[in-house]
């Protein structure tokens, strides 16, 4: 099995990676639309989105990395242990979801503290610590705005006018 994946051409592997991203984005866009139709509650949909998007991003990233690393785990893991970096997906989430005025200092702060946390508690604890702060920051800044849902609410109201929902 690992031999097959290892022999897979680079272009094919990238294509599969892209397909995974497309599937995830489609799911993340379709699911809230369906939920809106069913629940008609923008706050619930917004809160679910805040929880689901980072999970989807993390799942696809992990799946893509796992496929890339089949047959080379030991080398990659040794490298990672020697030079651990903060989780890229969490960093991207912060940079994407927060305004640059806030996201840059937050990412810098977490990146600065990450090595000392990793040294004291290990790589996985440090990664979990980073994710906890990233998700906490996103929910702090985005949650209240989405819960207010003024623009989202307006879009839904307009959609209800024109669509037989």
């Amino acid at each position: 099995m690992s031999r097959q994946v290892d022999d897979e051409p680079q272009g094919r592997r990238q294509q599969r990676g892209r397909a995974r991203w497309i599937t995830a984005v489609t799911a993340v866009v379709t699911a809230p639309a369906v939920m809106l139709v069913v629940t008609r509650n923008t706050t619930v949909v917004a809160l679910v989105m805040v929880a689901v998007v980072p999970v989807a991003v993390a799942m696809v990233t992990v799946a893509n990395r796992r496929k890339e690393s089949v047959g080379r785990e030991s080398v990659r893991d040794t490298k990672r242990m020697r030079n651990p970096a903060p989780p890229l997906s969490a960093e991207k989430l912060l940079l994407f979801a927060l305004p640059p005025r806030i996201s840059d200092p937050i990412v810098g702060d977490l990146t600065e503290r990450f090595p000392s946390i990793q040294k004291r508690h290990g790589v996985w604890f440090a990664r979990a610590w980073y994710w906890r702060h990233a998700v906490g920051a996103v929910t702090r800044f985005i949650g209240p705005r989405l819960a207010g849902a003024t623009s989202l609410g307006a879009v839904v109201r307009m959609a209800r006018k024109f669509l037989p929902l």
Partner: protein
Amino acid sequence: MGSGTALGPFQQQVLYVLLHLGEKAYGMSIWQELEDRTGEAKTIGAVYSTLERLERRGFVSSRMGDPTPERGGRAKRYYSITGAGASALQTSERVVRNLQRLVPRLGEES
């Protein structure tokens, strides 16, 4: 005291830490100090959202530092308390003291 100067408990804690740290107060140092002194595990987002709110109210001002390699080339945002912030803190201290006078000290009631 008008609601314009009213401070929440966490806002007060953040302002005290800003006074204590002085010029070297930035997100992570404020977070660390709060965790050490209060023992509560807040996220860095809670600290930044409070600082943003205080800045909007004019109680805190901020400036960007220089980017450093250990921060992945990202700059620190340094925060400091303004005159309005200091007087809001004094006002809320005074309010708490006035309220404390209404009741006997905790643990001294017979």
